[in-house]
C-alpha cells in the first residue's frame, strides 16, 4: 500500500512504537536511523516544526508525533492486528492513558532516575514507583496486555518498560521488581516474547555500553554526586 519510511533512533521508545505497530500489521517499511546529534536534511524537511523523531513518511507525505502516527497507522491498515478497541468509550480510555504517560511530568521521574543523584534521585524513585503502581493496578489490572488478549496501542506506548531493566542495571537500583509489581513484570515477559517485539528491541549490550557512558557523564557533571 505504497512506500513507507520510518525515521527513528535505535534506542528511542517513541520510534520503536511506530516500528512495532507496522510490524504487528505486517507493513513493510524502510527504517532510517537518525543521529540525533547530527540530524539529517531529510528529518529537518519532514519535521520542520519539532525536528524530532519519529517521523512516518507514507507515499512521500510525512507525519510526526508518535501518538499521531499510531492513530494514522491504525486507520490506514485497520484490518490487520487492530490496535484500538471498537467502542468509543474504550478508545477514549486508551487515548487518555497514552496522553497521561506521555506527559512530561510523568516521564520526568524515570528520566531523573537515570540522570539524577542524591535527594533528587530519591524523590524520582518514589514518584516512579507511584506511577508504576497506578499502571499496574488501575491500567493493566488483571489483563494479559494493556490491550486485553492482544497487544494494543497502549502496550506499545508502555513499551519503554520492556527494556527499562538495562537502566536499572546501570543505575544499580531496582524499582520495577517482580515482587512489588508482579503483573507489570509478567506483562514485560509476555511483551518481550512476542515475535514482532522480540526482533525489534534495542541491542542489550549496545544499550548497556551507550547508557553507561551517558550515566558517567551525568555523574561527572552533577554538583551533587556522592562519593562512591
Amino acid at each position, binding site marked *: 500500500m505504497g512506500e513507507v519510511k520510518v525515521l527513528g533512533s535505535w534506542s528511542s521508545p517513541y520510534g520503536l512504537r511506530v516500528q512495532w505497530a507496522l510490524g504487528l500489521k505486517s507493513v513493510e517499511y524502510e527504517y532510517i536511523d537518525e543521529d540525533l546529534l547530527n540530524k539529517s536534511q531529510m528529518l529537518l524537511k519532514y519535521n520542520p516544526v519539532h525536528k524530532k523523531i519519529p517521523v512516518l513518511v507514507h507515499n512521500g507525505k510525512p*507525519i510526526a*508525533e508518535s*501518538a499521531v502516527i499510531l492513530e*494514522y497507522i491504525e486507520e490506514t491498515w485497520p484490518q490487520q492486528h487492530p490496535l484500538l478497541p471498537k467502542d*468509543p*468509550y474504550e478508545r477514549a480510555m486508551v487515548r487518555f492513558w497514552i496522553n497521561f504517560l506521555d506527559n512530561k511530568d510523568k516521564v520526568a521521574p524515570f528520566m531523573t532516575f537515570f540522570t539524577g543523584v542524591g535527594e533528587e534521585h530519591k524523590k524520582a524513585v518514589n514518584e516512579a514507583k507511584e506511577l508504576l503502581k497506578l499502571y499496574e493496578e488501575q491500567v493493566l489490572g488483571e489483563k494479559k496486555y494493556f490491550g486485553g488478549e492482544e497487544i494494543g496501542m497502549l502496550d506499545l506506548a508502555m513499551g519503554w518498560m520492556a527494556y527499562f531493566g538495562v537502566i536499572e542495571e546501570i543505575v544499580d537500583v531496582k524499582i520495577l521488581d517482580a515482587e512489588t509489581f508482579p503483573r507489570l513484570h509478567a506483562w514485560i515477559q509476555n511483551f518481550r516474547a512476542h515475535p514482532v517485539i522480540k526482533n525489534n528491541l534495542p541491542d542489550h549490550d549496545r544499550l548497556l555500553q551507550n547508557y553507561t557512558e551517558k550515566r558517567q557523564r551525568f555523574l561527572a557533571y552533577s554538583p551533587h554526586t556522592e562519593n562512591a
Partner: protein
Amino acid sequence: MAGELVLLDFWPSPFGMRSRIALAEKGIPYEYREEDLRNKSDLLLQMNPVHKKIPVLIHNGKPVCESVIQVQYIDEVWHDKAPLIPSDPYQRAVARFWVDFIDKKIYELGSKIWKTKGEEQANAKKEFIECLKLLEGELGDKTYFGGESLGYVDVALVPFYSWFYAYEKCGDFSIEAECPKMIAWVKRCMQKESVAKSLPDQEKVYEFILQLKKIFGIE
C-alpha cells in the same frame, strides 16, 4: 444515543470551551455544571481522580477526561452530525499534529505572558507570536482549519481567543498587529453561534486574570 450528558467545567477554561463548542456544533443537549476550583465537588474528584481537573464529560455515568479526548469521543459517538475530524487518514493526522502543537505551546506560553515580566515575558511573547504565525501558515487561504466548516483544529484553538485581551494587556502588545490572519479567522469563527455562545467575554477573562494575579501575588 444522547443518554445523560454532563459537562463539569469552569467558565474561563479554554479546555472546557472546546467541549462546549463540539457539543453545540452537533446540537447535543447536555447539563453544564460550574465547578469552583478552590472547592472541587465530590463528583469531580470521583470522576477524575487521576488529575482532579476540569473539563470532565460524563456520558451515562462514565467519565471522559482531557478536552482533546472528549472532542474525539464526541465526534465518534455523534459522527453523523457536523463531523469535526476529517475523514481522510492523512488529513486526520495533520489535524491531530496541530492540536498536539497547540496543546504543547499555546496555553503554556500564554500563561507565561500573564504570569511573568521582563525577559521571561518578552521571550514568551516572541515565541507565542511565532506559534501563531506557524498556525497562520497552516490555515493558509482556508476559511477554517477544517476547510469550509469548523474542524478539530478550529475547536482546539479558538477558545484561546477569549484570553487574547488578557495576554495583550498583561504583555503590552497587539496580537492582531502581529497576526492579522489569525484574528480574521477568529472573527469568522465567532460568527458561528456554537463558538460565540461557548466563549466568555474577553474583559471578564481579563478581570479574572487580574484577580488571580492578586491571589498569587504577581505584579
